[in-house]
């Protein structure tokens, strides 16, 4: 009871909020020199260097580096592209592979010390990625089936009684043109946002408890820190999973646009 009373008296723990995501610019006052932008550029360098190094000395008996690079590539190519898109999947492997590695590396930056900020927790980055996927799958559908047939395939599901179109057509159109791109972006954004907030709560809370004047709070603070560490590993899992899911959904959209009938 004393602890609760003590908490109420002190200056109080300020829980992390959306304001913690608006980081000050690293250089100058421009909004283009912030940490997320720097991390995105850094991720491009990391990915490029890694895969150039991994594929440069390609041999039949692979080195460790080549093996790592090829495992990631074959995961996207076999488990995602080939399984889901099927015939003619090879043309879409570069897009899916770029999407997967870019999202994966940027997400994992969220738990790497000194970086510790997932760029995808700013909603503008996922929107751009979802935009690529959105325009790509519509372009494929229009190119493959023709504009009229493609739109007809979306709006009028085959094998449905005519009166159901009153309900189904608006839902289908909203799904394809609004819900799909928005959910694709928001899913990634909200996962990274929530994960970063969770880590801020436990690490920030532990920090607050450690600097509290009450001895009992100091003793309890390691529990908060250790839970923060556990959550960091959980975050790593979520980050990999979200990179997988955005690639999986993009592949599914492409497969849907390629298919003659929906």
């Amino acid at each position, binding site marked *: 009871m004393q602890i609760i009373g003590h908490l109420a008296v002190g200056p109080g723990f300020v829980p992390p909020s*959306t304001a913690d995501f608006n980081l000050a610019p690293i250089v100058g006052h421009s909004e283009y020199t912030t940490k997320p932008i720097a991390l995105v550029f850094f991720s491009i360098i990391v990915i490029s260097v890694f895969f150039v190094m991994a594929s440069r000395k390609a041999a039949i008996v692979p080195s460790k580096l080549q093996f790592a690079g090829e495992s990631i590539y074959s995961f996207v190519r076999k488990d995602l592209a080939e*399984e889901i898109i099927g015939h003619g999947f090879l043309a879409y492997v570069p897009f899916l592979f770029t999407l997967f590695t870019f999202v994966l590396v940027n997400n994992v930056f969220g738990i790497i010390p000194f970086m510790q900020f997932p760029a995808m927790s700013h909603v503008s980055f996922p929107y751009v990625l979802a935009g690529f996927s959105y325009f790509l799958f519509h372009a494929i559908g229009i190119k493959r089936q023709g504009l009229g047939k493609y739109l007809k395939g979306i709006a009028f599901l085959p094998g449905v009684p005519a009166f159901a179109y009153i309900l189904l057509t608006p839902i289908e159109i909203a799904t394809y043109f609004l819900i799909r791109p928005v959910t694709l972006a*928001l*899913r990634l*954004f909200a*996962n990274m946002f*929530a994960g970063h907030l969770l880590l801020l709560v436990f690490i920030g809370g532990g920090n607050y408890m450690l600097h509290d004047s009450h001895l009992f709070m100091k003793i309890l603070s390691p529990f908060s820190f250790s839970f923060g560490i556990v959550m960091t590993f959980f975050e790593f899992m979520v980050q990999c999973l979200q990179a997988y*899911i955005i690639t*999986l*959904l993009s592949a599914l959209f492409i497969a849907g646009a390629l298919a003659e009938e929906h």
Partner: protein
Amino acid sequence: MHGTLNLVGYGLSAIGPAIATGLIFAAYINGVARQPEARSVLQPIAFLGFALAEALALFGLVLAFVLK
């Protein structure tokens, strides 16, 4: 006591997606346990269902912050 009721509302709204995610993975585990070779077929379906169910929980989270 300070705070916002939004978070209580978010807690309540997260129950649905939590149960949904549990059901999806329970079905996936059941399927793989009965027929281990079906894993590669079931995996994308399970994760697609999980992503769709989880999206609802995340919309709740976003709205909990957005609505004042």
